[in-house]
């Protein structure tokens, strides 16, 4: 690979995040570590063709990065702040092994996803530091201006430094509290990709696959049931990506999707993760959501969906997370299992929840149940309310079509 710049490019893709994670620990500073990593790769590009590729390229890069980082500190004469690094200056850290490199990546993940940072900053920082996207790529992926995003990242790094957000994996006591934050960020990254159509972006970043990769890495480093559950959920949702929109880019509901277009490879992988997740108790919310997605995946057509099982899974999910949105989904499942009237009765219990009244899917669900119950007038009123509340094009057009199908003169 020594003479092949392509191979080095590949090495950069595969190893740069691991090198960076360890350099952050060794140098104690994000910006310095990034600079040092870039210099280490530049040095490799120059030296390896002449001297041959080292046995352990990752360790070589880490050591080269660390030396350059320390040189940098000396040059900038910020020695006072970093005296602890210069104290054992010739003693460049011991050969980093696989375990310490893996731990450093986990540390980086928990630092980027610390709840002391805003959720936007967590997503941006994770994409930047964990996925190795450039600031411009992150900005384009999150539909933000690069300047805004750059500022957000700078602010987040400043808070990490000044508020003393530690670069560490939370201990056993705190881990159960912190892990959901990390998973939430991964899922947000996934959804950011899931809800957008690819193809029009200049750079080829599929956030959905990036999120899956990140979660796979996380699951490898930290085998926990909920990570497997999230992986199962993402794989199963990802399997439907080609069926969720028709050729005109219009939204297709789960019920109407062409199930032959669901990606069987993803479904298979989803089931494998789900099995692992279910073997690890307690069963958390992502595992339950994945179980629901799995029931849909198992039905060859919408009519044969096991709504009884889905309704029971929603019961369990609601017990864990009694949120209005889960109550809404549960009501729809009950309507499918029993009758639309039963679903509507459950939905009526939600009308005191302010946030749900402004949620277009609440009204869309009511409209759908009224339609199924044979009350087109009530359905039309609810569709109109839903249309007023949504600003997403495909969603709006879908609701308009449904409203028109009622055949009422409005």
């Amino acid at each position, binding site marked *: 690979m020594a003479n092949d710049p392509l191979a080095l490019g590949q090495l950069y893709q595969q190893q740069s995040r691991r090198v960076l994670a360890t350099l952050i620990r060794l140098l104690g500073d994000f910006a310095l570590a990034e600079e040092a990593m870039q210099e280490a790769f530049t040095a490799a590009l120059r030296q390896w063709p002449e001297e041959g590729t080292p046995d352990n390229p990752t360790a070589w890069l880490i050591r080269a990065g660390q030396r350059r980082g320390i040189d940098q500190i000396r040059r900038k004469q910020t020695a006072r702040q970093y005296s602890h690094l210069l104290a054992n200056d010739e003693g460049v850290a011991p050969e980093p092994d696989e375990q310490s490199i893996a731990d450093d990546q986990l540390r980086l993940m928990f630092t980027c996803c610390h709840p*002391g940072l805003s959720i936007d900053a967590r997503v941006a920082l994770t994409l930047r530091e964990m996925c190795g996207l450039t600031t411009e790529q992150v900005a384009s992926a999150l539909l933000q201006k690069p300047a805004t995003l750059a500022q957000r990242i700078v602010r987040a790094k400043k808070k990490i430094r*000044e*508020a*003393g*957000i*530690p670069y*560490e994996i*939370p201990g056993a006591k705190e881990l159960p509290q912190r892990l959901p934050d990390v998973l939430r960020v991964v899922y947000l990254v996934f959804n950011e990709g899931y809800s957008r159509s690819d193809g029009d972006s200049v750079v080829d970043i599929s956030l959905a696959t990036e999120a899956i990769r990140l979660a796979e890495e996380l699951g490898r480093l930290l085998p926990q049931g909920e990570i497997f559950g999230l992986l199962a959920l993402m794989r199963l949702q990802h399997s439907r990506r080609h069926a969720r929109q028709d050729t005109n880019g219009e939204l297709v509901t789960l019920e109407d999707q062409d199930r032959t277009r669901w990606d069987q490879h993803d479904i298979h992988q989803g089931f494998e993760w789900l099995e692992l997740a279910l073997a690890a108790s307690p069963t958390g919310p992502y595992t339950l959501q994945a179980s629901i997605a799995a029931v849909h995946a198992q039905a060859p057509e919408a009519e044969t969906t096991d709504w009884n099982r889905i309704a029971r899974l929603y019961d369990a999910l609601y017990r864990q997370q009694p949120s209005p949105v889960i109550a809404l989904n549960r009501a729809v499942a009950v309507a499918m299992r029993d009758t639309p009237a039963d679903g509507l009765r459950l939905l009526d219990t939600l009308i005191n929840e302010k946030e749900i009244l402004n949620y277009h899917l609440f009204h869309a669900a009511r409209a759908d149940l009224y339609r199924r119950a044979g009350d087109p007038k009530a359905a039309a009123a609810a569709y109109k309310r839903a249309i007023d509340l949504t600003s997403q094009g495909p969603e709006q057009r879908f609701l308009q079509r449904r409203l028109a199908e009622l055949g009422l003169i409005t």
Partner: protein
Amino acid sequence: MKYVALVYYQESIIDAMTEQEWHDLNQECVAGVERLSAQGNFLTGQPLQPVDTATTIRVRNEEVLITDGPFAETKEQLAGFYLLDARDLNEAIQLASRIPPARFGSIEVRPARELPPKD
């Protein structure tokens, strides 16, 4: 690192407490301070009198302006503060989460800053 933990709560919640509940809460806070001191995390701190005892001072164009109470009507009021010595933000969060009013109000944790040396 030094962190200030600012304790906020709705005074109406306190006002609605019985004498006994208020007494118990205070005793819980005393015990908390004892524990923090024993661990070496407590540098200083003080509970405050209710916000209606507060006076706000501003200096504009060298004129001292004095107003009654805090300048904005907020839902939760500052009720006291702790100056903590913690390893990092995670430890500070963990210490702050055991401050009794965290159960019904909120605790804002901020790293302390040093003033620059005298010119």
